[in-house]
């Protein structure tokens, strides 16, 4: 019988911040979304103050009760590197690990005798090595492992682990938990299920397959099998090759000048082409979009997008040229734009498209390679097409950004001497 585990970091972004700043220990910490918009991660101290997921920072920042809260801009380079560290600690102890999201990983625990000791050790090692607290749940299917994890997180008395391999243990929780707690059952399905008197997970598991299928489709039926202990979802190794590469941003302030927008969009095209080269890919389709704020319609609302199929390339200058042309077609003066982006799709491995009729442009390729190396060595976009411009004061607001402790030498953790 297969056994799946799910290990999930508690308040992952906040825990990453705490790992490097002991002054944050036991204090309420909140990490904000891009542009310092709203709360996306909270420590339990912050939750206890009533801060909710998605709370807008500008609405609650002045609240007297929240004066002691440490607000932080999201620091994705740090979170990505800490996620890598967690993954690597796990792969030392478990044969197969699937990074499901930046802060949760599925584990293949089949054929292991003392699961409890192993899972306790996983938590200990992750905590010691990366300073990230986690919970682990396990059971015969991914859906059950996910539920076990949620139970471990909700009940402190379980000390961070929950074993749902036994039908008896599952039974007990199934009877008391709402179907809405199950991974993959959406809000709309929950309403319909409740209306049909399917309220607890037990009801769901015992219901007729045809009824479940009628309410929540094939996916719902698969979830039912998984909850019964029949594994339908396998462990995948890592995300399949990406469908597309995007670079999109919300601006720190509205953009109204075409020149400024051109610089922004060229910057996105540059970054997206760089990502392609980093993965040895080329893109055969480019899309550009710009939009105004849906919340400030008094200024007029507009959203424009245009796409183009192109000979596969990852050449920055070619992408910038296409992006500029597409932008010119969708630009409408008089609006206050707050978001824009470039998507590259139709990806193929680098060079696969080369043909005899269109000899590869070796000079351009080595120029791109040189540019990437210089940028890697001296920082993001030291070298860039002139069209990007220099003063990017539309960059997203990140006024409370912490150092990139593990990815930039100039920003590493500092220790005083005792």
């Amino acid at each position: 019988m297969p056994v799946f585990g799910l290990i999930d970091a508690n308040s992952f972004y906040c825990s990453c911040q705490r790992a490097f700043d002991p002054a944050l220990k036991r204090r309420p910490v909140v990490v904000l979304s891009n542009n310092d918009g709203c709360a996306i991660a909270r420590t339990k101290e912050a939750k206890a103050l009533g801060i909710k997921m998605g709370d807008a920072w500008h609405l609650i920042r002045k609240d007297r009760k929240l004066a002691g809260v440490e607000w932080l801009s999201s620091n994705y380079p740090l979170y990505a590197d800490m996620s890598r560290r967690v993954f690597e600690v796990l792969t030392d102890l478990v044969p197969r690990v699937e990074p499901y999201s930046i802060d949760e990983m599925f584990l293949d625990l089949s054929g292991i005798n003392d699961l409890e000791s192993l899972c306790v050790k996983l938590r200990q090692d992750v905590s010691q090595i990366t300073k990230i607290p986690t919970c682990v749940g396990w059971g015969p299917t991914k859906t059950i492992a996910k539920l076990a994890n949620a139970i471990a997180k909700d009940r402190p008395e379980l000390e961070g682990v929950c074993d749902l391999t036994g039908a008896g243990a599952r039974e007990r929780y199934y009877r008391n938990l709402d179907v809405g707690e199950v991974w993959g059952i959406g809000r709309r399905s929950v309403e319909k299920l409740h209306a049909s008197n399917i309220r607890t997970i037990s009801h769901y598991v015992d219901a007729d397959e045809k009824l479940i299928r009628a309410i929540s489709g094939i996916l719902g039926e698969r979830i039912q099998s998984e909850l019964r202990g029949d594994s339908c979802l396998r462990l995948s190794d890592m995300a399949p090759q990406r469908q597309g590469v995007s670079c999109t941003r919300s601006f720190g302030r509205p953009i109204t000048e075409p020149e400024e927008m051109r610089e922004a969009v060229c910057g996105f095209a540059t970054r997206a082409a760089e990502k392609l080269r980093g993965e040895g890919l080329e893109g055969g389709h480019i899309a550009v979009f710009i939009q105004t704020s849906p919340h400030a319609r008094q200024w007029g609302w507009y959203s424009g997008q245009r796409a183009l199929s192109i000979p596969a390339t990852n050449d920055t200058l070619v992408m910038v040229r296409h992006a500029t042309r597409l932008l010119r077609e969708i630009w409408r003066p008089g609006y206050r734009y707050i978001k824009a982006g470039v998507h590259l799709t139709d990806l193929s491995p680098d060079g696969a498209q080369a043909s005899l009729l269109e000899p590869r442009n070796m000079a351009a390729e080595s120029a791109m390679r040189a540019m990437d190396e210089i940028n890697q060595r001296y920082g993001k976009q030291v070298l860039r097409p002139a069209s990007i411009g220099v003063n990017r004061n539309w960059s997203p607001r990140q006024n409370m950004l912490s150092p990139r402790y593990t990815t930039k030498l100039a920003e590493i953790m500092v220790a005083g001497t005792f």
Partner: protein
Amino acid sequence: MSGYAGDRTTGFASPAADDIEGPIDLSEALDLRRPSRYPVRVSGATFAARGILPDDVLVVDTSVTAVHGSLVVASVAGRSMLAELRKTGRRWHLHSGDGCRPPVEVAESSDVEIWAAVTGVVRLVV
């Protein structure tokens, strides 16, 4: 940077073409990719006599068990500090580098906690 590494010569074929090793990668030499390795910058001079100067970069490891005499990075009342770990009887204490500060006990009650053990030092001169 150019992609030339001593191999792709245009006139005479490079006799070294099959033996290209590339420059030394210090990140590899210091094992910085290991999940337990972190770089930490030193700020302060009390360990100068032990050969650790201000601005040095310590390589620390969170998986190594510190022993009597280990140099460690620890959190002391909300600050990260470099200190020497010593055992007296059954208790562990942090000692200062120059003996000017009284030792503090490693204990949750005193808000002193070991973060990692020091495994190396990197210094850039100039």
